[in-house]
């Protein structure tokens, strides 16, 4: 039986009380073209047939692949406790309630998320929470404009291309967004060009914020302290786009002078799933607390001296500030923030360090194995667990490796078409889930593809792992 909150009879009585003839009249104020049209859905199917069809669709997913794909979303082992706790129905109201103090459990979970993340990024304030890393990064950039009353933001081209697209969408309304180019060659190839940054900061309108990622989209470690120093010298704020697991082994944003940290929380106990939902992390220094969108929960004591959680700051949210809100999109991804909290609490600081260190160790083995078959790194700088390798005809090789059961990362030409140095490169990553067997499958598959390729194209990176530029 379809769910119905009221019967036809109820509706008739309500319409009669209102003195109108039909429900449609209630929507008369909405112009016709803006109204929802009828959903064009196929006819209902019997459950058995439907289940069989859905099973067929699900069967088209490749779950047999050895995956080396990262590029912003990372596979990690998650303790079973994470999903088990998420299954509890008490958590399923993903929004903080409008009388929040009644829901002490929800507030405690948000408080713990904010506390854990604040420790990880080494900043004072973490808000709960945003749609994804791209949205959080865009909010961070807007924060710099509000705080400095300036309207120009510089973003490194080594920030995830999807994040840069989101920034461009947010900045479409008149704010200025410019990209900082990458160093073309040498030791620092692929990292943010500091000389270009300095020039951009010196020319044109005053800069509100500088956005750079650590590790970068290309997996490289960026000179974050230097970027921050240059930004601050020009009176701009510094936004660090982070990958949270990496912070177990890399310096946190607070340690190198970042004013704001933003990033994708998916690696913290959230399975890679097509398109999300994910978790946007956003953190800042205390001085920016009134610019940070989202909600801040605090711990205090009630009148009887018992521990109590309160909504400490939400005064700049749109239910209070309307069009003057700090953001009109600060949806609290509470269930996914909870997943991140449970993941961090169960895996612990030592466990998180192991996760990051094992990913780095396996990535080093991957680098050696790929270099041995002729696919050397494109860049020379240090990386953590993701790097670009030069592969002739990378897109075609990537496609053919799928047939061999290997998801060979990402063909960089697909997402960075305007970077000629990356036109024949794959971005590959390893995590603690990457096995030696998978690395061997990738390397032998690639060797076979490159051998085939050898007959048709003369340029192949040297097998010693020398950078491609040097080989050309």
């Amino acid at each position, binding site marked *: 039986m379809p769910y119905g909150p009221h019967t036809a009879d109820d509706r008739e009585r309500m319409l009669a009380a209102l003195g109108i003839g039909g429900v449609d009249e209630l929507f008369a104020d909405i112009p016709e073209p803006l109204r929802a049209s009828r959903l064009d859905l196929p006819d209902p199917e019997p459950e058995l047939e439907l289940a069989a069809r859905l099973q067929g669709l699900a069967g088209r997913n490749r779950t047999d692949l050895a995956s080396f794909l990262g590029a912003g979303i990372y596979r990690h082992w998650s303790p079973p406790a994470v999903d088990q706790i998420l299954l509890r129905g008490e958590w399923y109201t993903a929004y903080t309630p409008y009388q929040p103090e009644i829901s002490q459990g929800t507030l405690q979970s948000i408080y713990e998320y904010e506390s854990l993340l604040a420790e990880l990024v080494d900043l004072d304030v973490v808000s709960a929470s945003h749609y994804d890393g791209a949205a959080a990064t865009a909010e961070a950039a807007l924060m710099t404009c509000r705080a400095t009353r300036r309207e120009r933001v510089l973003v490194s081209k080594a920030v995830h291309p999807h994040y840069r697209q989101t920034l461009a969408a947010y900045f479409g309304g008149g704010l200025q967004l410019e990209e900082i180019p990458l160093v073309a060659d040498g030791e620092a190839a692929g990292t943010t060009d500091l000389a270009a940054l300095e020039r951009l900061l010196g020319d044109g309108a005053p800069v509100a914020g500088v956005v750079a990622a650590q590790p970068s989209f290309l997996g490289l470690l960026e000179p974050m302290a230097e970027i921050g120093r240059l930004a601050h010298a020009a009176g701009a704020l510094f936004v660090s786009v982070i990958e949270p697991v990496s912070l177990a082994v890399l310096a946190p944003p607070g340690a190198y002078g970042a004013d704001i940290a933003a990033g994708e929380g998916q690696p913290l106990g959230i399975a890679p799933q097509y398109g999300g939902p994910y978790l946007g992390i956003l953190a800042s220094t205390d001085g920016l607390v*009134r610019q940070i969108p989202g909600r801040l929960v605090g711990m205090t004591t009630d009148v009887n001296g018992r521990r109590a959680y309160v909504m400490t700051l939400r*005064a*700049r949210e749109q239910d*209070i*500030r309307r069009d*003057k809100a700090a953001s009109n999109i600060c949806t609290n991804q509470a269930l996914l923030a909870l997943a991140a909290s449970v993941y961090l609490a169960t895996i612990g600081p030592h466990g998180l360090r192991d996760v990051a260190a094992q990913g780095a160790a396996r990535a080093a083995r991957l680098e050696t194995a790929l270099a041995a078959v002729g696919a050397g790194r494109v860049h020379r700088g240090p990386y953590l667990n993701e790097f670009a390798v030069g592969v002739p005809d990378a897109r075609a090789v990537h496609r053919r490796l799928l047939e061999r059961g290997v998801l060979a990362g990402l063909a960089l030409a697909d997402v960075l078409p305007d970077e000629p140095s990356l036109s024949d490169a794959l971005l590959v990553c390893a995590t603690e889930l990457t096995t030696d067997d998978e690395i061997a499958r990738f390397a032998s598959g690639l060797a076979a593809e490159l051998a085939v390729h050898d007959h048709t194209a003369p340029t192949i990176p040297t097998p010693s792992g020398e950078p491609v530029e040097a080989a050309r």
Partner: protein
Amino acid sequence: MVPADLHYTKDHEWVRVDGDEATVGITAYAADQLGDIVFVELPEAGRSVTQFAAFGVVESVKAVSDLFAPLTGEVATANDALAGSPELVNSDPYGDGWMVRIRLSERGELDELLDATAYDALIAAG
């Protein structure tokens, strides 16, 4: 009865004119209505403000409200003490709880403000 020597706005700001400068704050009635004030966001010196346009924000535990400039001019000074002690707005709204001093450019605008009797009548009417 509100202080007799001040000018008032319908938005519950008060103005004390002293030569070319006007000191601006919010009235005791407004502070009471807002409740405990926890944050005041004020413009820096040098910024121009326009009569009846928003120039700052006052945040209490209950609400966040815009502050409206009673007069047009340039901000001469803002009350920095409110950054650390926003509660001064509650405890001494006409004194230490002042917000900005404005260098007046349109003296004629004073005619558009309320006197103490008119403002008293306004808040009595609720």
